[in-house]
């Protein structure tokens, strides 16, 4: 599973990254988590409203910080 968190470093983006890492750890699954901060990469991935969450090349959410429980549900 490849998970990408896209954002340019503001607190919300970092929070989403932390939540994703916690969710993956709690689920005990193997996932490759990447934090994408380059603007062009973010836009080319189809995200305009950061923070964005992409799982296995599918855009899961844009513009919000999802909490750990919801991320766990999304990843299952």
């Amino acid at each position, binding site marked *: 599973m490849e998970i990408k968190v896209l*954002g*340019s*470093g*503001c*607190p*919300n*983006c970092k929070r989403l990254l932390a939540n994703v890492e916690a969710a993956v750890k709690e689920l005990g699954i193997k996932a490759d988590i990447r934090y994408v901060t380059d*603007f*062009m990469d*973010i*836009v*080319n*991935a*189809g*995200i*305009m*409203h*950061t923070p964005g969450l992409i799982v296995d090349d*599918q*855009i*899961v*959410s*844009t*513009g*919000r*910080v999802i*909490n750990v429980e919801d991320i766990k549900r999304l990843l299952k």
Partner: protein
Amino acid sequence: MIVFEWINDQLLKMDWLHAIFEWLFGTVFGLSQETIWYQSLTFFFYDVIKIFILLSVLIFLSTFIQSYFPPERTRKILGRFHGIGANSLAALLGTVTPFCSCSSIPIFIGFTQAGLPVGVTFSFLISSPLVDLASVLLLASIFNWKIALAYVLVGLVIAVSGGTLISAFKMEKYVEGFVTAAPASAMAEPRIDDSRMSFKERLRFALGGVGQIIRRVWLYILIGVAIGAVIHGVIPQTLIETVLGAQNPFSVLLATLVGIPMYADIFGTLPIAEALVFKGVGVGTVLAFMMAVTALSLPSLVMLKRVVKTKLLVTFVGIVTLGIILMGYLFNAISFLFI
């Protein structure tokens, strides 16, 4: 009209809350009304609690409405319009579209790649931090509805004219090349579209929004209220009147220039604005200060610098600053119409 005033006084100004603290510090603790402690403490506690209540309710409502206007949808809508109509619509949509400053670059790039003129994108970027539902209601709570609506109107005018001027000066060429040169793969519709949320999802989104914003701004609010309390209780009226009052023709200029390098959430400027108004500072001067603090922020300017060349950035800052200053003087001149 009386009902309206009651709503304004009790729900927005929360006179009852102020009365509670006046009682607490005056009667229970026995502080004399003249002392600095009484003035500052009553103001501090009343204002902190009032702002957090207002903040939660207003952010909840705003975020709920905003769930209907994700940037992707705004971009699609704007693509269908041209000229000043597009600028006006961009300015209007900017007021209901939320984004934190780190989104301003992706949004800029996204809009530009979709073919939206630079001016239209800037109208959006100017109005977004300047005007939104929450700040309008806040202003109504400090002043009154007429001023709040006038603020919205002027904010929109600044956004529309700013964007139109930027287009008129043909500043497209000052956008960094890599922005427009990138492939249009960004046009893909996200598979989960924000605008297709269910009602319950929107409620949760709105609640989440409140939590996020409070986490982000609580410190600004405490600092703002502390400064307001100092202004209220400690700084002598005469000093404020001399520097920022109606007699000083430079008050608007000063308020704007001081506000620009500062960045705080509008909720943090509210208590300072309240205290200044209480001490007799002109409406226009206070509005100019609030606008200067919220419209231009160092974080988003630093980010914009990466996608537009300096000349365009400077033009953008210059136009917005001028607009704010003009608006400040205008409001001071015609304030008798509003108060």
